[in-house]
């Protein structure tokens, strides 16, 4: 069921303790900051979070980690010069890390959305990230078995939604949005603009509304704001 809500607080209200939450974005592009802030505010805890990184600076995901809401991170690149909250929790042994090569992360999320039970890939073969995993030689190459990553909830950011929940994105802010929308049981999207049904060219829809459950409009700020106006 698709619903349009008036606030980010309302959008995240159903997220339960112990949930697996996918959060879109790569760097600040496509990062649903307002939804993450609302998730922090709503108090849900014991979360498993799937994101490419493990938070930056003193905002968004970094604050969720700082406040002890995240039990486990599934990500490809948790080490950054400004990711001090993850660093502190990790070194204190207070957060679990599942480190996944970025392409495996993307493909495991895609596989979940597509109902695929797993796949073999050369990525990671012969490395410590393949230790303990099933391997096979396929077409003469060593390959590693990888399983899908499912989620209870996805928080993503898109440019526009129409009345059917169809989404379009903007430039490299698309990143994880389409695959996370498909992989989660409940997908929550913040958009800059909601247009009437029929207001998006069906040829240009990137995420069909079937993957979308909750839409909230959040006004844009920053260097992209004037460019989309």
């Amino acid at each position, binding site marked *: 069921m698709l619903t349009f809500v008036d606030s980010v607080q309302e959008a995240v209200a159903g997220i339960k303790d112990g949930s697996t939450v996918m959060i879109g974005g790569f760097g600040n592009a496509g990062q649903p900051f307002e939804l993450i802030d609302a998730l922090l505010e709503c108090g849900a805890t014991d979360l498993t979070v799937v994101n490419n990184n493990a938070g930056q600076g003193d905002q968004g995901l970094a604050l969720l980690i700082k406040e002890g809401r995240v039990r486990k991170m599934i990500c490809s690149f948790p*080490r950054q010069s400004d990711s001090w909250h993850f660093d502190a929790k990790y070194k204190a042994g207070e957060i679990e890390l599942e480190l996944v090569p970025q392409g495996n992360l*993307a493909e495991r999320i895609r596989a979940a959305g597509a109902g695929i039970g797993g796949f073999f890939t050369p990525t990671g073969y012969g490395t410590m990230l393949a230790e303990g995993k099933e391997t096979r030689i396929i077409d003469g190459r060593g390959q590693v078995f990888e399983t899908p990553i499912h989620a209870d909830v996805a928080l993503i950011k898109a440019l526009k939604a129409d009345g059917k929940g169809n989404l379009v994105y903007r430039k490299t802010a698309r990143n994880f949005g389409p695959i996370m929308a498909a992989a989660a049981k409940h997908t929550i999207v913040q958009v800059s603009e909601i247009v009437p049904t029929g207001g998006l060219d069906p040829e240009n829809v990137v995420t069909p509304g079937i993957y979308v459950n909750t839409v909230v409009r959040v006004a844009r700020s920053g260097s992209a704001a004037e460019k989309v106006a």
Partner: protein
Amino acid sequence: MSLTETSIKTSETPLGRDDLARLVARDIAPGSFVNLGIGQPTLVSNYLTEEQNITLHTENGMLGMGPEATGGEIDEDLINAGKIPVTELPGASYFHHADSFAIMRGGHLDICVLGAFQVSATGDLANWHTGAPGAIPAVGGAMDLATGAKDVFVMMTLLTRDGASKIVEACTYPVTGVGCVTRVYTDKGVFLTGPEGVTVRETFGCTLEQLQELLPVPLKAAAA
């Protein structure tokens, strides 16, 4: 083949980072689709010519990436894999992360250029993790690039600060990919790596014999 100076190119001085980037750029075939890793490899883009018609891929989801954005061009929705604001060129395309890595993993990229801690004689790459106790491991797209691109070029200094060769018999750092590196560009020479071991294509500021003294693996000279 014996150690002979006659079949390889030489220059009198070691190459600086920009000269090395210029050399890598010159070696990229016209019309190639290329991914340049974060750090030193990014310099290569400064020396690609319009005539080469190279299309740059950035793994966060774009083909046709242009130069770094400045001033009013800066747009937070348009960044590269290093999270630096960039521009788009005519003919650019955007796609989601799984498609972007399928471009890599599906063998569609002609060349990726990466930095490295170590490369083994048979082309194993170590560039993601020092393995030091307490170090937070982070891998990003390094393993996908290493195993997916048709050719993997490495750019690095040949020696560590302590003077140890980064071309080694077997990597002592955790590996990123096995047998994936095809070429290593360094300040002291260009090396081809693969199942047959290490072949020297060019030397900079040293002789092949001097290189052989620095490296713990047997070197062959490239065929003339």
